[in-house]
């Protein structure tokens, strides 16, 4: 597989190269900026397709691995690879970006160059976070995402953009910096117990930390990811960010960034700290169900369409978190599928809102009504994405929601660890989650009815043009994929299945492994003074490794002189 290892680095490099190219073009050449951006995004998608073609769906482990020593002294590698789970998320990211750039043709008209460059950098960061197999590398990509998104909301956002962008940063940074502290801890623990300092995820996964440490570390990691998801009650930044962000920002935020929260839990938090995850699983599941219902209820009373869709994301992502923490094959696969589907349908919804907003410069539900007559093509497109989001069978939303609810229903039977002691009735949770499906249909159809049906009584709506050819081009691939995923979900699930199986078996086996014991390095004498004992070398401490005991002698020698 070594000959294909260039694919992922290429995937990461392309958007950045495009961004640099865009920055070199003079500021006024908006058409050229957009053109370069679109070509780069399409090329990136082409490379992603190539990666998918090379990907072996039967295999459970990481593929297309590219491993380059980055910071030798700390054991940090530039290691990237994909498995059956991340390959789809990479595909989703690469798929959405050209669509977003095309859609932003009219809505972003000032500082186009910066916009295109920022979107491309963001793409590299997002793909990077999905393919990183090194904790350090992952953290770098994770943090790099912050700045472009901050600028995206802050520069091209709505009236309260400064407030929304700062809120976004506060929430994200609090989570991620604390996660950094936990990363240090894991890194050092691994170094002290095995003598090898590394941030390689595959190696760190082997380490079984003491119970207490696992609980703490999981809590910190889960906080960082749960904020991103966002898990109820940490979701309050999301509506603000969505409402103030430009359409492109909303699509990227809902389509990809939120998934990183779930993905982080799946890839990092749960495999590294399974005991902590087992402890937390019932609580997270309850919060997820609370989020499903709360998000749906709040969405229902929104007057602003964008806020409505933002809260629907809270509800939908609740399904994803619930499925993940059922720790059943069905639940986890459903969670992954629901992520992909949500990425498509919610992006479609935000794009549709963008279409309306560009024409009317308002997002209030009461301003619209009866648009079906005025914009029939748009209405049809909008209907499909709405139904897809609502989980109508035959469209993509249904499969994911069904699987997660089903996974929850059987969770108590197939996977007792963690569930039994706290929660006698996963079935009850499944029942509550299922009401979320119904509520989802209620608020989404309510939204559709309010905007599209009824009399066309608002004067200003009577002259609205229907969607242009460019806008149809934007919607067409999304809608095609919504149908494909709804009618033929098998290829997606099948590719992910070996990786999901592997995730679950590894998780299960680690629950029963003995905890690692860290050798203590300092001892105290009777006066309470500390003495250093022979200890494993600190990271980057090459010199100490070399001479070890010679150190003290050298000092004594120097003293005598």
């Amino acid at each position, binding site marked *: 597989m070594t000959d294909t290892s260039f694919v992922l680095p290429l995937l990461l490099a392309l958007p950045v190269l495009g961004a640099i190219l865009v920055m070199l073009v003079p500021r006024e050449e908006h058409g050229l900026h957009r053109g370069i951006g679109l070509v780069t995004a399409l090329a990136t998608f082409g490379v992603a397709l190539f990666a998918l073609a090379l990907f072996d769906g039967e295999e459970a482990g990481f593929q297309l691995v590219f491993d380059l020593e980055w910071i030798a*002294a700390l054991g940090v590698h530039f290691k990237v690879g994909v498995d059956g789970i991340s390959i789809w998320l990479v595909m989703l990211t690469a798929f959405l970006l050209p669509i977003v750039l095309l859609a932003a043709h009219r809505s972003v008209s000032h500082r186009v160059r910066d916009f295109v460059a920022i979107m491309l950098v963001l793409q590299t960061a997002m793909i990077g976070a999905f393919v990183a197999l090194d904790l350090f590398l992952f*953290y*770098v990509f994770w943090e790099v995402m912050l700045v472009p998104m901050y600028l995206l909301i802050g520069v091209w956002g709505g009236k309260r953009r400064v407030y929304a962008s700062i809120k976004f940063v506060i929430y994200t940074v609090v989570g991620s910096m604390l996660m950094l*502290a936990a990363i240090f*801890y894991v890194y050092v623990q691994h170094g002290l117990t095995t003598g090898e300092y590394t941030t390689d995820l595959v190696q760190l996964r082997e380490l079984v930390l003491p119970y207490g440490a696992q609980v703490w570390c999981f809590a910190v990691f889960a906080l960082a990811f749960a904020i991103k998801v966002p898990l109820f009650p940490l979701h309050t930044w999301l509506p603000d960010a969505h409402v103030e962000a430009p359409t492109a920002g909303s699509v990227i935020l809902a389509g990809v960034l939120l998934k990183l929260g779930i993905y982080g839990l799946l890839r990092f938090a749960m495999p590294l700290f399974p005991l902590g995850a087992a402890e937390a699983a019932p609580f997270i599941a309850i919060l997820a169900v609370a989020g499903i219902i709360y998000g749906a209820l709040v969405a229902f009373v929104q007057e602003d369409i964008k806020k409505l869709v933002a809260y629907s994301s809270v509800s939908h992502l609740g399904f994803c978190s619930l499925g993940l923490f059922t720790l059943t094959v069905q639940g986890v696969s459903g969670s992954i599928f629901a992520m992909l589907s949500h990425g498509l349908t919610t992006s479609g919804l935000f794009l549709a809102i963008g279409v309306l907003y560009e024409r009317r410069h308002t997002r209030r539900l009461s301003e619209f009504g009866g648009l079906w007559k005025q914009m029939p093509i748009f209405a049809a497109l909008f209907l499909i994405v709405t139904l897809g989001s609502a989980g109508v069978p035959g469209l993509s939303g249904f499969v994911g929601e069904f699987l997660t609810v089903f996974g929850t229903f059987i969770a108590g039977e197939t996977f007792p660890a963690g569930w039994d002691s706290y929660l006698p009735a996963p079935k009850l949770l499944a029942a509550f989650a299922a009401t979320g499906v119904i509520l989802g249909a209620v608020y989404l159809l309510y939204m559709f009815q309010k905007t599209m049906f009824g009399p066309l009584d608002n004067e200003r709506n009577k002259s609205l043009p229907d969607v242009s050819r460019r806008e149809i081009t934007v919607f067409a691939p999304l809608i095609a994929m919504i149908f494909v995923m709804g009618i033929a979900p098998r290829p997606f699930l099948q590719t992910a299945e070996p990786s999901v199986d592997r995730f679950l078996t590894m998780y299960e086996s680690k629950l029963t492994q003995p905890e690692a014991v860290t050798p203590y390095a300092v001892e*105290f004498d009777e006066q309470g003074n500390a003495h250093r004992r022979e200890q494993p070398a600190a990271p*980057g401490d090459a010199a100490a490794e070399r001479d070890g005991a010679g150190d003290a002698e050298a*000092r004594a020698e120097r*003293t005598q*002189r």
Partner: protein
Amino acid sequence: MIELTREDFLYQIPLLILAVSGVMLILLEAFTEGNRRDFLMSLSVAGCVGALLSSIVLFRSIGDESIELFGGMLVADRLAYVLTGLFAGATALSAMLTADHQRTHRWEVGELYGLMLIATAGASLLSMAGSLVTIFLGVEMMSIAIYDFMAARRGSRPGTEAAMKYFLMGAFSSGFLAYGIALLYGATGTFDISSIAAFAAENPSDPLLVVGALVLVVALAFKVGAVPFHMWAPDTYEGAPTPLSGFLASVAKAAGFIAAVRIFAEAFGGDVMPFGRLGWASVFAALAAITMTVGNLAALRQERIKRMLAYSSIAHAGTILVGLVAVGVGAGDGAMAAVVYYLIAYSLTTIGAFGVVSWIGSRDKERLRIDDWSGLAVSHPLAALVMTVFLLSLGGIPPLAGFFGKFYVFSQAVSAYDQQLLWLVVIAVLNSILSLFYYLRVVMAMYFREPEGAFTPMRSPATVIALGLCAFFVVKMGVLPGGWMSIAGG
């Protein structure tokens, strides 16, 4: 009588270059006529580059050895040359920026460049110190030169006030330094740091030794601007000519830290630690926690960019202290390397940040309030981008030098001493979150707002080259930190 050998001079060539060219420049200034600012600046940069190159050569040739010069008064080792190289480089960058500041704001003081080199020579002397006497000499040589050139902008009232404050506080801390050295001499009967280390290993709780060490902590905390000895820093940084604030925040601060390393890590390091379980590191741990928190909280409230950067530099002093704590509890060469790496990363970033402040200010409008920076990204995208790089690096966002510096220091601190410093790292991490807000406020002003009035930054090659170099290294040290880690000693 100490016998001088050829080696004694050979190994201190960088120091000699700095000192001699500093004196030469001051003399030369008296004999050059009229406005010869650029000429003097180029000469001072040449002197610094000479010192930098010779440090590099000596750094490569000396290997892992530690050579005592002048009977132990000076120690030549890799650490000394890394720091000397940093001081020389940072001074060259500051000098380049200062020339343009002088041109913009029309203040002509040619002695400045000579004095800068002498201050740098003092700082290098500290990095090579093997004896408390050398420490005192180095601190005084550096400080007195700085007192002089801080007051160089004669017409400026805040500048004079800044210099006066720095002088008074500096004199005060010199008193502490002398007193601490005297106490240690009283306890041990020697100025030699390695002999003090030997004495401390046998009598770890000798009262005079303990008091002397504590007094030295106070003296050095003044120099590096650690809370609660930081009061001079905001006023001084704000009042001083901007590039010189950068010099103060980088060279002078790093010199204070290297003195602390020479005294504490070497004299009181060792296997038995005085003052109980954490040794001297317990004092530093408390200082670090307070310094970071107070610095960041105060920076949050600042409306003026130089004051904000001043408090930010106080906060960064706290972070470096975390690294020193790790050194103090015996984390070994790794922790030492992390501190050095952080010093390099931080110095380059800070000089760059003050440099941009100096660059975009014009004669009629210095743009020292954060609100004055509105819309810089629209009118001067490159200046805004470079400033953003520096600010994000200070805030610890990957993949920039500041992030990796923090990562390196924190990971060393966590691994030290059975993870018992985890609490300190958690405080440091929480502080990083805080710090991001005030850095992002400037980013917000530059990017989110529309410009009010035209910016007229100077188009001068010296400033552009200096800022370009800073930005280049800040990015490079973040993306490819490996080589720099080995330079730092990791």
